[in-house]
């Protein structure tokens, strides 16, 4: 600076607030702090433990089940006992082993469907929130129309029309969840697009694609993570429902929804255990993912 030479000490770089700063260390500290806050929430601990249990079952499959879930036939419809903790089903297979092994299909399908729906929803949502105007108007109406029809009903229609393969079930659920995700992401993008850094980007001639993917998307990533965890829970529920209706995973898989649909008529004959345990399994998985999602959301906003 040629003019206005002032005491260098006076104009010297302003020290950052606080002691010596190490940018990366500081960031690591911040994420460790977030993890610490998460671990303090009982909801998160319980949810994670349940999730961990089901993940172990899904990965281990029939290697870790007490008995073979498919081909180990004992006396049928035994009530819960020391030999069979959850009893046996109408073919004499161990219900506990089948419930454990049944985690696999749904735990593969649900997260894939959730990832796909979040990816597509994020794309739509950012486009709507960034461009606004007629693009937003048209897409919003389509989404509203979509949301007004019950999810399971359309899913059932699509799957019965196209056939019940795993790929089609996953694709259907992903497409059906996309509008819901898009709406949330749109709201987050609208708020971001008001900020001056977006104006600054436009003032240096950035393209819309750049602003959406590089400038805005990183700032809505928290929303996307929460949206993903929530969608996993709903996907578990929807996929199980489809299996129950016979439009999802096909026999002889020990899938929960499928098992329930095979056994629920037995309740009238007071054989409740082949139905109750897979139902509890679905409930526990959905609740666990929601507990985790809630905790992440709360900590993120804290």
């Amino acid at each position, binding site marked *: 600076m040629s*003019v*206005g*030479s*002032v005491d260098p000490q006076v104009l010297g*770089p302003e020290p950052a607030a606080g002691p010596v*700063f190490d*940018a990366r260390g500081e960031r690591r500290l911040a994420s460790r702090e977030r993890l610490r806050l998460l671990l303090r929430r009982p909801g998160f601990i319980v949810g994670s433990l349940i999730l961990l249990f089901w993940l172990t079952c899904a990965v281990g499959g029939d290697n870790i089940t007490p008995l073979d879930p498919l081909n180990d036939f004992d006396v049928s419809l035994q009530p819960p006992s020391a030999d069979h903790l959850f009893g046996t089903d109408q073919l004499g297979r161990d219900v506990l082993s089948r419930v454990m092994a049944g985690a696999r299909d749904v735990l593969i399908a649900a997260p894939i469907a959730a990832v796909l729906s979040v990816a597509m929803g994020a794309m739509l949502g950012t486009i709507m929130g960034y461009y606004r105007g007629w693009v937003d108007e048209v897409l919003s109406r389509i989404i509203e129309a979509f949301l007004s029809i019950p999810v399971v009903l359309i899913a059932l229609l699509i799957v019965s029309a196209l056939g019940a393969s795993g790929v089609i079930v996953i694709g259907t659920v992903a497409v059906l969840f996309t509008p819901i995700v898009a709406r949330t992401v749109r709201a987050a993008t609208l708020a971001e697009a008001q900020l001056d850094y977006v104006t*600054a980007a*436009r003032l240096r001639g950035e393209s819309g694609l750049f602003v959406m993917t590089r400038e805005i998307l990183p700032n809505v990533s928290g929303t996307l993570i929460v949206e993903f965890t929530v969608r996993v829970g709903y996907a578990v529920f929807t996929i199980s429902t489809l299996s129950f209706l016979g439009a999802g995973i096909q026999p002889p898989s020990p899938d929960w929804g499928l098992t329930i649909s095979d056994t629920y008529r037995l309740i009238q004959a007071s054989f409740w255990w082949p139905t109750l345990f897979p139902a509890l399994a679905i409930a526990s998985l959905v609740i666990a993912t929601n507990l985790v999602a809630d905790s992440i959301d709360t900590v993120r906003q804290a």
Partner: protein
Amino acid sequence: MSDPTTAGDGAVATATANDALAVEGVELAYRVRGIPREVLRGVTFHVRPGEAYGLVGESGCGKSTTAYAALRYLPSNGVITSGRILVAGQDVTDMSERQLRNFRAREASMVYQDPGSALNPTLKISSQVIEAFTILGHDKDEASDRALDALRRVRIADPEKVMHRYPHQLSGGMQQRVVIAMALACDPQLLVLDEPTTGLDATVEAEVLDIVRSLRHEMNAAILLIAHNLGVIRSMCDRVGVMYAGRIVEEGDAIEVFEEPKHPYTIGLLQCLPRHGARKTEQALFTIPGTLPQIGTSLPTCVYVDRCALADDLCRNEVPPVVEVGAGHWTRCHHVDRLDEMPEPTVQVVQHEGRTDVVLELSGVSKTFRVHGHDVPALVGIDLGLADGETLGLVGESGSGKSTLAKSMLGIYPADPGGEIKLDHVVLAGKAADRPTAAMRAMQMVFQNPDSALNRAWTVRRILRRAIRKLTGVGKAEADRRVEELAEGLRLSPRHLDMRPRQLSGGLKQRVAIARAFAGDPRIVICDEPTSALDVSVQAAILNLLADLQFDKSTSYLFISHDLGVVRYLADRIAVMYLGLIQEVGTTDQVFGGPHHPYTEALLSAVPSVDGEPSERIRLTGEIPSPANPPSGCVFHTRCHRFIEGTCDVIEPPVVELEPGHLIRCHLPVDELGKVEVGTG
């Protein structure tokens, strides 16, 4: 009260039983992750009934915490560890929840910075104001009568109408009046005002302060006023306490403290302000080196020692004594006799070459927004030129069209067809996206709020590198090299480059934003209130930086600000806007020296200054009219104190050239235009 300095305060400020507020040796800590961090380190002061006491200091010094502590409105992790707080003789620190509620309802009130969040957006004004009275035990009819009275008292012209509105239908100034009316419902012994006018325009601020001043005499309530604007404190308060790092370092009569400060910190704060009509061509602004210590830092001796120019071993080893320097005026410093050794702002004489080559020229630029099917003219036929290396200050109340003008220049809001924006004599497209890269590179912007202007997911390095690459088109390696250069020029150290914006202080963030604007060596930088979110010491550093960059690179600035002292310091020429029209334009000396346009006259006289009030106050009544339905004739006639009936409301005023370059849009003959004596100190 183990701290010897706390006892010292007591010796100076003698407590009396009938003080409206007595804060005695209060130490307060916030528990963060289980560790108590000291925020107040023994604060002692007394406010007598009917007296107004001001607290000043940089943000983070503990002034708001003190105000909240006075009513024991503390977050759950805030603990008063020592001392006591008496309001009208009652100890607030050992009240039960129930007593506290009753106390807050009847004895003390508080007014916050943002009136919008103090009012419930879903309830009509009537139910909120009436509730303030029914709580006190009045029945419904009496309460509603009293509510109307209360609104009249804060000079709301049509209280019946206002009662039926919702908060969002009122302007910020109106909302703040309603909040004040509610605060005064219980006829409190103590009224705490925390930055009550910070978000308001100077003209509205002057009006709100007037109301508080006149009510104060009616009600005999003691006032504790927190404000970062020293001018506001001077115009409102009898006595003032200067706070630093959780301790009062100087206290005394307000005028005496501002005229003859006796603590190095007070002296520094006052020197940071562009005062007495200081100009960038004459002197750089003084800045206080360093920043406020973080809360919880251990400061065993003098709290200001790390930033003080006079600090020596004595200051580092011994607690400074309380030195009485006048009647009721004391300071906490070892070196009261050495204060004249404080460094003065550097005097610099810069030859200002009368540059005439016009970089940017606007002729007949208008901008009309379409809102709900109606045309709303935001800019009307703007003619304006910006010379090379010149700073053009743009002033006016909010809603006058300043930001719209800036955004039309930049092409964020394309101007209406018909007008022309010429850069180096070449007509520019209306939309930024349609302009050539060179034109984009030539014009950049510094925003008001750096938190919004910087992408919080990016590191500083990435922010700067992207701007350099996009604007200049250089390769990656070259861009990396220039990032370092740019950072050095802006006095950002290399370690800041790998940080994200939230890890930086407000001043550093604004430097990054300025660096980004300068990434492509722009011809013109538009600064939209770049220092209004910053403390005075940081503001001074940023203003110095902007002035230095301009001297170096001969960049032109369009500088938007509501702070006339700042505009006067930095601007070569000033344009005054009202309702989308330029009312007056001229060199800084012409605009400040007069004769003025009546609107300029009112703006100049509304500003509370640390150097004392202007001799004559012109009060602008009412609010800026909606641009959707502008007044006939002269748009300013509805609020003008020199209004000529039959002329101003019928005929559009001509533009008159008073002197070469000094244009005024007014019907009045030159010799009837007003002159305001400002800041001659």
